[in-house]
């Protein structure tokens, strides 16, 4: 069995400081993407319903997609802090440049650092990710790297100065949930003082709840809400699931057993006689 679970709970409960990164989660442990909604208005309604800690945004060439100005106005109206991403970047230089541009436009030191290494499953390039992370932290950024669930990579990201690491649950947009719970449990146990966010691959509220039950500090998702038949209702479902999972983690789950164990007292069972 992996160690560190109880220590992690204790640390989180006793922590009363609200400096970064605890301050990110003071109101919510759900981070929500802003892409692929049926309409900008539905996106705004989903954000208002989910009440996320942050919403992710991007930078794209001006005029390349219609409605950019309207989109940004609607996001600002929600009052939810933004987390700019570097989606689409494939090199260290691209990621650093987009992060610098995001800092100026969005007036935040936070960056969801993405450096894609494979176009098929949008898997992060671990080597470029670590290099870009190191440079951006040197430039004063607070880097939230989107990584795989590889323990050594996540350890290196922490050593580089990340206080938050965001391992994937499954490839972006796949909705497959937590493909490797063992790896995620290992990360939680081995990095008890790091804020861990499951980012990507979550397809249903039960996936989000499962991540939170494992002790993750938050979940980041987009498509599961934006591509739901009713995004606003799904946003509310995720809000509740994340809170339920967090409460369950803090409450401490029972140990599972291999055999049945009666919950109703055996003593006094009617019609039973000692033979």
């Amino acid at each position, binding site marked *: 069995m992996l160690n560190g679970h109880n220590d992690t709970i204790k640390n989180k409960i006793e922590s009363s400081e609200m400096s970064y990164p605890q301050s990110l989660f003071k109101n919510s442990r759900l981070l929500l993407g802003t892409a692929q909604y049926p309409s900008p208005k539905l996106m705004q309604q989903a954000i208002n319903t989910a009440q996320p800690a942050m919403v992710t945004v991007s930078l794209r060439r001006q005029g390349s*997609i219609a409605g950019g100005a309207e989109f940004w106005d609607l*996001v600002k109206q929600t009052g939810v802090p933004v987390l700019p991403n570097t989606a689409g970047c494939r090199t260290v230089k691209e990621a650093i440049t987009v992060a610098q541009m995001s800092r100026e436009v969005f007036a935040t030191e936070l960056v969801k650092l993405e450096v894609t290494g494979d176009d098929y499953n949008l898997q992060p390039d671990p080597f470029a990710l670590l290099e870009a992370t190191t440079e951006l932290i040197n430039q004063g950024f607070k880097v939230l790297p989107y990584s795989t669930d590889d323990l050594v990579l996540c350890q290196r990201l922490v050593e580089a100065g990340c206080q938050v690491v965001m391992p994937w649950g499954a490839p972006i947009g796949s909705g497959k949930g937590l493909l490797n719970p063992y790896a995620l449990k290992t990360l939680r146990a081995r990095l008890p003082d790091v804020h861990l966010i499951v980012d990507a691959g979550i397809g249903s509220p039960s996936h989000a709840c499962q991540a939170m039950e494992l002790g993750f500090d938050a979940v980041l998702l987009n498509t599961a809400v934006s591509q739901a038949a009713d995004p606003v209702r799904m946003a509310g479902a995720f809000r509740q699931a994340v809170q339920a999972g967090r409460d369950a983690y803090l409450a401490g789950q029972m140990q599972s057993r291999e055999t049945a164990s009666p919950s109703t007292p055996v003593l006094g069972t009617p019609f039973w006689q000692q033979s």
Partner: protein
Amino acid sequence: MQIRFNGELIHTEHHSLDAFLVSMVDTKQAFAVSVNGDFVAKQNYQHTTLHEGSQIDVLSPMQGG
């Protein structure tokens, strides 16, 4: 001279980035600029010179996951 603006080859007479942006960009929108792949902060627009073949990207807020 020929430059590449947001991926497209265009002709411009402006050699100052500042003047070029005023003529080409929707300045009502939030935006940030890179030249030849390097970020250029707003305070440096007027000191940045464009050359034949310069690549300018102007990015604005957009949906993201």
